[in-house]
């Protein structure tokens, strides 16, 4: 009998659309994540195979969190269906035993919920065969990780959710109660995760996590690429206990449900039913009274009324249907997740400004809205026919348009309700984060106009598809093809938005520049596609089925009958408008601008490399002086540059040919006296001038040029976001001509290089490469230059460039500024222009100026303070500041970094300016980033490394160290522990994303996780071992020897030698460990005990283990003997992790794998162990200390 019920139930569930909707949603979410980088589930894939076991586990685990909702939809339906449809009495009076009934229903619901997840499994399997994927990023197909993830990660989770919510549904018999329980479950989960996060016992957290996330992350977070590609989470230890415990809890819950469930008619439903049977089953019609006379009216306003009544009825029908509620809840949930974590850097939040929230809606909500549009387009077009009401409604005297338009409008209203729900969700998130600057106007534009219109156009397509195919499932297929087609077209480089159906170009909102130059193309393309949508609607009107005729022949005849003057006129006007809009767009994108696809640009880059790589590092003169007049017209997005270089031959040979390179497609004219153009290749931006008289060694010559950047009309996709209406920021790399081949054009991605037959990219020249040592790591065509530049902009803006303001004046309604440097700078400089607010301060007579957007005043004082503290430390410990001013300037978030130019530090608006520093416990990264950038005035702008391995250590690692010291002076050593913990975490995680080879720090090849993250750790540890004064002495020596030097440039060999010189002989091995090799530790406290002494103090005894490894560039580890000075210490209790007071800390020289220590401390100890502050690189830092017993 149970079996019969089970079979019946399964058949029932599989007939419901909900199953297919969920399957499709899960399939496409996963498919998107597997086949593109635009969609992410649980984070970016990095260099891990797209179908790696780790990815499979992560996708299924993350997706299983949605199981709370999907499973509930099924178990709740299994119980509540009877009460809703009044079939409970039917079931409960039939000879079905309670356990059979419950077992059958529960099992069926659980099985169907599980089947939904095959959507995820098949999506990964199918996705990894898609032809556009890089074959190098796909592993062989192995079934085991799928089976493991499905049966060990997903099914126990689903079983638990099913058991919990089955219990709630069965015992309350209320749908609302069940969904309230779902909400409560999520809230409880989030709250417990947050509160468990900081408590000591991560083990407990891992055990208690019902989703199995905590044990999964705990085990896999530092997996290397190799491990991610090959390993499955071992089913043992805490993870095994976690699974067993929750299955056990689920079984207990089921048992309780079976015990307490009563097989009787539900009370609420019963009452309703009685009322009905009592009164209306009597078939009496009362005695005849004439029906009241009514007047009927038609046409005009009445049609509008009919349109509105249709809207009302249809909207109600959607809003009250179960799939809608489930999908909307899923969407809201996904949005909460997206919005909560959308604003974090370094564990510090920035203000959840509105554009970030809109971004969260776009990436986390919109997909669900499209699914709703697709599904309900089918429902709404077919509703009457599905329930056989069409013959009634189709004979009603309402005009055809009022019916279909009413339905379409109802669908659109529903979708806007969804968008409003999304908006309220993110507003709630903003409120929870105590951010109360609700920009409703921006929300309106960003959500209701930008996202809304796009959604509506897609809806029209779905609706039209349903009408024209006159087959619900074929209609759904159209929706499916549309969704897939979008990504396939992108992948195949059909990029023009004129045929990217209903897909206007993306916009990036910036608080500084608004929608800026993105708005115009967006508006035109939206208009274009809206007109197209209107055309579809007119055609749909003609083919709207009214009545029972379905043959295309007759429908065509009927359509012909509906064609009248109004239709013809409308259609003609629309088509004219569509074509003219299209022509106007084409004129802008393809005639005023150059249209090219990504693969065309790649191809050009590959050609450039093939043609001109042979000239790499040929002797060329170097730029010594730059004079440039730069005129910015922000409103028109125009820049005119008239510049003159002074070139000097610093080589020992005469130079005959000048190789001038320029960004292709940027108009450039060059005047070189007595030179002829020997080769000109504008397509690849390469030209060679032959000098009539070769430039003799030591001789100089001028070279003048004019660059014209005049943006005209709009592009298909905006590729230049540097010259904009408010917030122009460009540098000379892309806008000025340069001398000699530049490797910047080279394609970096391995698969693209293979495609175009290029050899694997060489990231960096070897550290001792004599040719490369003649170039610095920033510019090859200049060593140190003098800059004299006059920049002008519109009257209301301030324009800036490196150097000191010599003169400022207004002429012809334009604002002019002349800047000049007084000490040599690298040949890398930037221009900015915006409507700035300026805050001025000073440090020992040196002006500090912050140029910022008036809306972003939050952290300006912090930045000033950071600059002051930095200058304090750097001038005291390194060398004098070479400039006489420090400026920080905000620029729009089209790029997201801070960059240090001489006395000029542009900061993206998304970094620092909107950082939320209200949490005093969190890392003040505005202060940190400011210190880091100011440090670059020394580390890059005084000492610049050669263009070889380790170059970025000289700039970035030194800037990290400098910033760490400034922070430590400000916040104290304790606070540094949390920062270093982040650095350790990001270094270890970064190893897992390595694309080529991990290098030791001194040979770093521009690898961020090494020169920033490991750099911090290594320098802090060095400081700890040999002392701050010794480290700074070494750095002072480096500056003394190499500041402003001419080629050959310094390398990390010089730095390491300076370090060794200040390191005592017994600690020389430290230099090897930190800088010359990849060294890792596995330190562990094995026991820790405490006894209270009679004098009130505490005796702590600790046993520790220490292991040490060397890793090769692929992460393979070899054990080496321990011979190090390591911290042994005791910590007190603290509320927040990472802030525990240090009660005792001593360096001990460890030479054996195990050792025992004891301490006497005055206050009550909490934990004790080895390297308790995590200064060493340890893949499992949490077991370094142990709770004392």
């Amino acid at each position, binding site marked *: 009998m149970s079996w019969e019920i089970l079979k019946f139930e399964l058949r029932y569930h599989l007939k419901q659309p909900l199953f297919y909707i969920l399957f499709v949603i899960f399939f496409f979410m996963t498919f998107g994540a597997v086949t593109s980088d635009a969609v992410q589930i649980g984070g970016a894939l990095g260099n891990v195979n797209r179908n790696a076991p780790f990815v499979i586990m992560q996708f299924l685990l993350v997706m299983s969190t949605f199981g709370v909702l999907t499973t509930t939809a099924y178990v709740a339906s299994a119980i509540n269906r009877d009460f809703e449809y009044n079939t409970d009495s039917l079931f409960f009076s039939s000879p079905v035993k309670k356990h059979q009934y419950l077992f059958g229903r529960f099992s069926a619901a659980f099985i169907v919920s599980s089947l939904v997840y095959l959507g995820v499994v098949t999506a990964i399997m199918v996705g990894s065969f898609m032809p556009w994927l890089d074959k190098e990023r796909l592993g062989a197909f192995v079934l085991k990780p799928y089976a493991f993830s499905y049966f060990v990660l997903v099914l126990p989770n689903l079983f638990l959710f099913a058991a919990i919510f089955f219990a709630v549904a069965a015992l309350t018999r209320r749908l609302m109660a069940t969904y309230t329980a779902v909400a409560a479950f999520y809230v409880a989960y989030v709250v417990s995760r947050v509160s468990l996060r900081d408590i000591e016992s991560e083990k407990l957290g891992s055990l208690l996590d019902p989703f199995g996330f905590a044990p999964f992350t705990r085990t896999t977070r530092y997996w290397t690429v190799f491990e991610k590609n090959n390993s499955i989470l071992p089913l043992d230890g805490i993870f095994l206990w976690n699974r067993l415990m929750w299955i056990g809890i689920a079984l207990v819950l089921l048992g309780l449900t079976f015990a307490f469930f009563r097989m009787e008619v539900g009370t609420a439903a019963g009452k309703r039913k009685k009322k*009905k049977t009592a009164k209306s089953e009597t078939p009496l019609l009362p005695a005849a009274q004439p029906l009241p006379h009514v007047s009927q009216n038609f046409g005009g306003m009445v049609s509008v*009324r009919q349109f509105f009544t249709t809207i009302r*009825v249809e909207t109600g029908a959607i809003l009250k249907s179960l799939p809608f509620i489930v999908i909307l809840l899923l969407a809201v949930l996904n949005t909460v997740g997206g919005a909560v974590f959308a604003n974090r850097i370094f564990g510090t939040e920035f203000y959840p400004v509105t554009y970030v929230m809109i971004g969260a809606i776009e990436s986390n909500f919109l997909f669900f809205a499209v699914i709703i549009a697709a599904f309900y387009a089918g429902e709404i077009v077919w509703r009457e026919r599905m329930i*056989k*009401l069409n013959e009634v409604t189709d*004979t009603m*005297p309402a005009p055809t348009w009022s019916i279909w338009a009413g339905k379409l409008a109802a669908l659109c209203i529903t979708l806007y309700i969804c968008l409003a729900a999304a908006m309220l969700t993110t507003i709630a998130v903003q409120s929870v984060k105590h951010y109360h600057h609700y920009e409703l106007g921006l929300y309106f534009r960003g959500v209701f106009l930008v996202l809304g219109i796009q959604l509506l156009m897609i809806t029209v397509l779905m609706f039209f598809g349903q009408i024209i195919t006159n087959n619900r499932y074929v209609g759904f297929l159209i929706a499916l093809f549309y969704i897939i087609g979008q990504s396939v077209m992108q992948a195949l480089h059909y990029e023009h938005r004129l045929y990217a159906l209903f897909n206007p170009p993306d916009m990036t909102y910036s608080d500084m520049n608004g929608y800026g130059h993105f708005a115009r193309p967006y508006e035109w393309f939206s208009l274009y596609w809206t007109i197209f949508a209107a055309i579809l609607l007119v055609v749909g009107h003609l083919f709207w089925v009214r009545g*029972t005729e379905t043959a295309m022949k007759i429908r065509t005849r009927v359509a012909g009958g509906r064609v009248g003057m109004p239709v013809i006129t409308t259609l003609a006007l629309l088509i004219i408008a569509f074509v003219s809009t299209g022509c106007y767009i084409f004129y802008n994108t393809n005639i005023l601008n150059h249209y090219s696809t990504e693969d065309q640009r790649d191809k050009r880059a590959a050609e450039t490399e093939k043609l001109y790589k042979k000239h790499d590092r040929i002797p060329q003169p170097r730029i010594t002086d730059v004079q440039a007049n730069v005129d910015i017209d922000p409103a028109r997005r125009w820049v005119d540059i008239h510049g003159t270089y002074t070139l000097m031959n610093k080589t020992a040979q005469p130079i005959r040919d000048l190789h001038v390179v320029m960004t292709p497609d940027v108009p450039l004219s060059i005047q070189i006296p007595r030179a002829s153009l020997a080769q000109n290749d504008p397509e690849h931006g390469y030209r060679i001038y032959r000098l009539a008289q070769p430039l003799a060694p030591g001789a100089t010559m001028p070279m003048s040029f004019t660059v014209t950047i005049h943006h005209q009309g709009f592009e298909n996709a905006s590729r230049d976001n540097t010259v904009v209406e408010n917030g122009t920021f460009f540098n000379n790399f892309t806008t000025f001509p340069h001398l000699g081949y530049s490797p910047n054009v080279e394609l970096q991605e391995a698969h693209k290089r293979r495609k175009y037959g290029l050899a694997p990219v060489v990231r960096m020249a070897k550290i001792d490469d004599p040719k490369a040592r003649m170039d610095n790591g920033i510019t090859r065509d200049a060593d140190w230059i003098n800059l004299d530049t006059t920049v002008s902009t519109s009257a209301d803006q301030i324009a800036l460039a490196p150097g000191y303001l010599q003169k400022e004046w207004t002429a012809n309604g334009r604002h002019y500024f002349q800047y000049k440097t007084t000490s040599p700078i690298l040949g890398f400089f930037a221009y900015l222009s915006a409507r700035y607010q300026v805050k001025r301060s000073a440090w020992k007579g040196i002006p500090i100026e912050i140029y910022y957007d008036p809306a972003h005043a939050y952290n300006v004082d912090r930045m000033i303070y950071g600059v002051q503290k930095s200058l304090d430390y750097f001038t005291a410990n390194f060398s004098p500041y070479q400039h006489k001013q420090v400026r920080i300037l905000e620029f729009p978030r089209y790029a997201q970094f801070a960059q240090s130019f001489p006395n000029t530090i542009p900061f993206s608006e998304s970094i620092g300016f909107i950082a939320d520093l209200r949490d005093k416990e969190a890392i003040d990264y505005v202060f940190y980033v400011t210190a880091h950038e100011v440090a670059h005035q020394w580390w890059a702008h005084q000492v610049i490394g050669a263009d070889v391995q380790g170059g970025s250590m000289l700039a970035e690692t030194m800037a990290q160290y400098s910033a760490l010291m400034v922070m430590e002076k400000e916040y104290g050593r304790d606070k540094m522990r949390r920062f270093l913990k982040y650095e350790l975490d990001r270094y270890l995680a970064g190893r897992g994303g390595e694309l080529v080879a991990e290098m030791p720090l001194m040979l770093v090849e521009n690898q961020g996780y090494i020169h920033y993250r490991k750099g911090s750790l290594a320098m802090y540890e060095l400081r700890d071992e040999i002392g701050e004064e010794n480290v700074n002495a070494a750095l002072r020596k480096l500056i003394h020897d190499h500041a402003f030097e001419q080629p050959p440039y310094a390398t990390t060999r010089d730095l390491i030698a300076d370090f060794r010189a200040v390191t005592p002989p017994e600690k020389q091995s430290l230099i090897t460990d930190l800088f010359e090799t990849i060294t890792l530790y596995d330190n562990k406290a094995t026991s820790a005990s405490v006894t209270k002494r009679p004098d009130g103090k505490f005796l702590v005894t600790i046993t520790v283990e220490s292991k040490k490894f060397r890793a090769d560039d692929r992460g393979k580890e070899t054990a080496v003997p321990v011979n190090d000075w390591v911290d042994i210490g005791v910590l007190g209790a603290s509320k927040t992790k990472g802030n525990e007071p240090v009660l005792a800390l001593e360096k001990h020289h460890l030479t054996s794998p195990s050792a025992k220590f004891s301490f006497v401390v005055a206050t009550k100890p909490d934990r004790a162990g080895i390297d308790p502050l995590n200064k060493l690189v340890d893949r499992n830092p949490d077991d370094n200390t142990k709770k004392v017993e």
Partner: protein
Amino acid sequence: MLELRIEGLSKTYPNGVKALQDVSLTIPTGMFGLLGPNGAGKSTLMRTIATLQEADSGSITLGDIDVLREKDNVRRLLGYLPQEFGVYPRITAEAMLNHFAVLKGIVNAKERRETVNALLQRTNLYDARKQNLSTFSGGMRQRFGIAQALLGNPKLIIVDEPTAGLDPEERVRFHNLLAEIGENVVVILSTHIVEDVSDLCSQMAIISGGRVLMSGDPQDAVRELKDKVWRRVIAKTELDDFQSRYTVISTKLVAGRTVIHTVSDAQPDPTFEPINASLEDVYFCYSRRDSQQRQAEAA
């Protein structure tokens, strides 16, 4: 007086079924019964009149309205109750009827409320008006269908097998309601139950195989068969024999015995007893003649 004229109406479905073949009928004000077996073409005819379907040829006029072209004008006068219909889930009877009333052009709120209430009372759904339609029983739904068909004082009412789901008592009440309304408007009642027609209709047509077999006053038709219908009780085994010898128009079981009706100008033989012809006999008579004719055509 409104009159519906159908002339030479033909319709062949894409699958080749000839649903209507040269149908011509004149339907005056009053109740008009459309009698015929399942698949005779009744529903096609009614749907065509109700603007739901296109005809291949022929014409329909309602007064001076060309039904096949001026569909909107027809719909303004029409009340239609199809053979089977469903309802929206999660909407109350009152809300749905109110919605239909607006679609029918009753936009004056007060009038709409009155007429909706009156119709709900009339169909005895008033107490159930706040209930979701999806919880209605078959009979209640049918009554709801009637209520919507009567919205807005229609001049042309088409009801397709309306009493199918009703119990006998409800059927009677429904007939009364139809008869009352049918006094001043055109009511087309399609049915395969002869009694419905004889009880209610002043005019009728029998159609089968897409053709009109007869049309006119049912009383006249019955009168034509006066003294020509004969009845006999036979053994079941004798049926074939009787069918070959006499014009047997109907066979039915009465109290377990086989009773046949035959048509003949004179008493076939004394074992046959004369009976008063009924409309049923007329119907069977025409049906039999039609099937014989078609057999002949087929041969």
